[in-house]
């Protein structure tokens, strides 16, 4: 089997594509009333992948992420990994994670992932060598960024 393909579909990614951490109802009432909350819906018109993602924040800490979506293994695994990674992060930490992830995705394979910041999301490093798939990996992250902005409005 081609190693390129395995660098894209790391076992962590295939596992998360099935486990789908955080997949569940995204209506505001599914979180505590006292928390600030925001939602974003993202669609990739090229392939039809979709994610609706909601965050709940306490002060500036991400308390909970929930999402629903349909799409390829990369986009679904990315939403799942992100949920695990950013839950409990502060808003600033999350922004740092997002920046690092985006930088990694845009690198066309030239940047080594910082596992300390990115955790399991470092497994997506191989995606950057497949420009057509970068959007898939970014979809949930873009939703997260928008949802956090919406929560702080």
């Amino acid at each position, binding site marked *: 089997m081609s190693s390129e393909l395995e660098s894209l579909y790391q076992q962590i990614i295939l596992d998360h594509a*099935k486990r789908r951490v955080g997949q569940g109802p995204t209506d505001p009432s599914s979180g505590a009333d006292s928390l600030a909350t925001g939602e974003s819906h993202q669609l990739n018109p090229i392939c039809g992948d979709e994610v609706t993602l909601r965050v709940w924040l306490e002060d500036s800490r991400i308390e909970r992420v929930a999402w629903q979506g349909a799409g*390829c293994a990369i986009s679904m695994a990315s939403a799942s990994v992100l949920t695990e990674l950013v839950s409990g992060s502060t808003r600033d930490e999350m922004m740092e994670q997002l920046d690092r992830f985006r930088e990694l995705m845009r690198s066309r394979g030239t940047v080594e992932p910082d596992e300390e910041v990115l955790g399991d999301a470092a497994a997506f490093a191989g995606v950057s060598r497949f420009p057509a798939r970068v959007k898939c990996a970014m979809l949930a992250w873009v939703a997260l960024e928008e949802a956090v902005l919406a929560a702080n409005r």
Partner: protein
Amino acid sequence: MPILSAPSHPLSDDEVSRIRNDFPLLSTELNGRPLVYLDSGATSQNPVSVMEAEQEYYEQRNAAVHRGAHSLAVEATDAYENARTLVASFIGASPEEIVFTSNATEALNLVAYSLSNASLGLGGEAARPYALGPGDSIVVTEMEHHANLIPWQELAARTGATLRFIPVDDDGALRLEEAASVIDGSTRLLAFTHASNVLGTINPVAELVSLARKVGALTVLDACQSVPHLPVNVADLDVDFVAFSGHKMLGPTGIGALYGRSKHLHAMPPFLTGGSMITTVTLERAEYLPPPARFEAGTQRISQAVALGSAVNYLAETGMDRIEEWERILGERLVSGLEAIEGIRVLGPRAGQPRIGLAAFDVDGVHAHDVGQYLDSRGIAVRVGHHCAQPLHRRLGLTASTRASTYLYNTTDEVDAFLAAVAEVRSFFGASA
């Protein structure tokens, strides 16, 4: 350049491997493996003769057509008009009935905008019968490519006409019994695809045309997936308009054609306006040339038209009925092979039913994007997504599918390599068991 006649014996893997020598791209590699190109439904590869025709045009004849007194312009005009004649005879039309466009999408928009202009009162008395308004209906099918759907949505929105749909059943076949009630006295235009780019079905043109004729509706045929793959004769089909794209029939991108029945083209107002399509122009108004020039405003796609003429020659020399039969064999092998793999749902007609050499399918538990990526790593190029037919995918309960589509240059070995790779997909993604 007359159209040459084709041999009569059927195409075989042996002959196809000789044909492949004419297509340089087919002997390249994809991800370190010999390329298996199964995406001709999206765009086909070009034989050397087509690329040379375009190059030769630029090296020896390049000039603006229908303009200029120099001999080069005469040669360029001859080459362009010869291409029109070749395309016309390829589909049984006369040259005046062929309008060159940039692709099928533009051809369909040309019809829609011309009718829209007629609806605004442009084109005078002759164009009046082509005006649409509230109370009129436009009918399309649920299986259309967006190119044969959205122009009619827009025409309906501009004129106040309503858009209606002939439904498909769960296997993607048109429900003809319902078509008879969807098409009624209010129907002014019926637009439908000859062969579906998702289902591979070949629609019953004669039945649909007769329903439209009964109520005096115009018929528009999207022939993008038929003209490249089967013998098509517009006179036999008896439709009013036919649209197709050169890049799906061994030609370059940037060229397509609209066939329009002569009496309609003569009566309809232009879509694009400007140079090369007029007789007398004053500051206030202009008189237009007869068709096809009326519909070819501005400097045209000359080298691409010349190359399309060469592509049509290549197809005619190979023989459209031989191509149709070879692709029927490949399509049947695709579908019966796919149906035998666990977890695969083929869209459209079952094995044994008529279809073109194309099969779209869903892999249980694996998204089409991932299927395509897996096949790509094995050197196999297929299309994934909604194939510009979102409403059809929604009707079939899907957002995306994977599609393999063949052409005259594909071998049975390639189909088998594809099937073997598809059989591995679910276990790679952990979807089997």
